[in-house]
């Protein structure tokens, strides 16, 4: 089997804009799920609201497309009601960190045995490009027309501080690494959080000097830095450029987890 066996082909092509990174993250997630050898009847995909959250609609398994920000609350319910199910959550940066921020930190604190894949496009894509908690400083959006003055959330740091067992960050350019990270997350008991930075050519790219989807992918490629290198530079007292994207496995530990299959 390959990842394409998990797709609802009658629903394709999907509604995402040309070059939207969400489609790539679906490929990587399904590829990891496929490598787990899970049965379709025992796997559930859960999402909130947003472009990213439409992903489960293109997957053959049972799924829950819930209310905005509440994907993790529903996923917690599923996992505690039936721990034998494999639960994977797709969410967006707005869904996870703005309206769903409290659910996020408490799901990490409880360390519930689910895998959360956040497609972080640094903007509210579906509603037309408002700023989100991860919109970088000085980035343009419809609600920050002169550049965002607020510092952005680091979702991975947040997940680590709140208690998630596995935390990793990659981008839609790093397809192999992202797939491996999701696979490691699926294998780890407790909450696994994988942040995938994605391009949103329509609402983020267009306003922020990335005219084509490919331009933002090039940015990810050039500004990514492995966490091991970043640690080394810090130890040597060297400076890390402020727009660097730290990539790789940021946490892997063994805190007590909830809802693990007996």
């Amino acid at each position, binding site marked *: 089997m*390959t990842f*394409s066996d998990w*797709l609802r082909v009658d629903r*394709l*092509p*999907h509604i*995402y*804009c*040309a*070059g*939207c*990174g*969400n*489609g*790539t993250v679906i*490929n*990587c997630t399904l*590829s990891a799920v496929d490598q787990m050898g899970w049965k379709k009847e025992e796997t559930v995909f859960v999402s909130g609201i947003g472009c990213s959250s439409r992903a489960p609609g293109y997957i053959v398994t049972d799924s829950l497309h819930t209310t905005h920000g509440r994907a993790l609350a529903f996923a917690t319910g599923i996992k505690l009601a039936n721990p034998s199910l494999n639960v994977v959550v797709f969410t967006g940066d707005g869904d996870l960190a703005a309206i769903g921020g409290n659910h996020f930190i408490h799901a990490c604190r409880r360390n519930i045995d689910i895998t959360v894949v956040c497609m972080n496009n640094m903007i509210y894509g579906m509603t037309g490009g408002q700023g989100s908690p991860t919109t970088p400083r000085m980035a343009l959006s419809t609600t920050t027309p002169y550049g965002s003055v607020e510092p952005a959330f680091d979702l991975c740091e947040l997940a680590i501080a709140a208690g998630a067992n596995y935390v990793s960050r990659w981008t*839609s*350019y790093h*397809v*192999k690494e992202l*797939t491996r990270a999701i696979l490691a997350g699926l294998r780890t008991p407790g909450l696994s959080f994988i942040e995938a930075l994605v391009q949103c*050519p329509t609402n983020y790219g267009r306003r922020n000097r990335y005219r*084509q*989807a*490919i331009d933002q*992918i*090039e940015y990810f490629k050039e500004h990514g830095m492995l966490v091991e290198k970043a640690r080394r530079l810090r130890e040597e007292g060297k400076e890390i450029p402020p727009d660097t994207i730290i990539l790789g496995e940021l946490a892997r530990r063994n805190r007590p987890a909830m809802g693990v299959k007996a």
Partner: protein
Amino acid sequence: MKLHVDEKRCKGCNLCTLVCPYRIFRPGKRPNQKGVFVPELDRPERCPNTRLQALYGRTLCGMCQMICPDQAISWEEEKKGEKRKVAIEF
């Protein structure tokens, strides 16, 4: 096997042109019926999957297929009796 781009799914984003180590994909020059500039293929028989996928029993490289946000890239079995081109680059 042969490399296939599904014109019904492709939205012409050109991400495949960026990742292929053999530069098999080139930005399309003419729009199809849907107005999409589907990439052109430059000697696709150079892709290792066209010759070796069946032998190895798995997808080799596969970068284009994984990054394609529209699930438009796949490898198809040739029809019986269909001529097969082989190209090897050194």
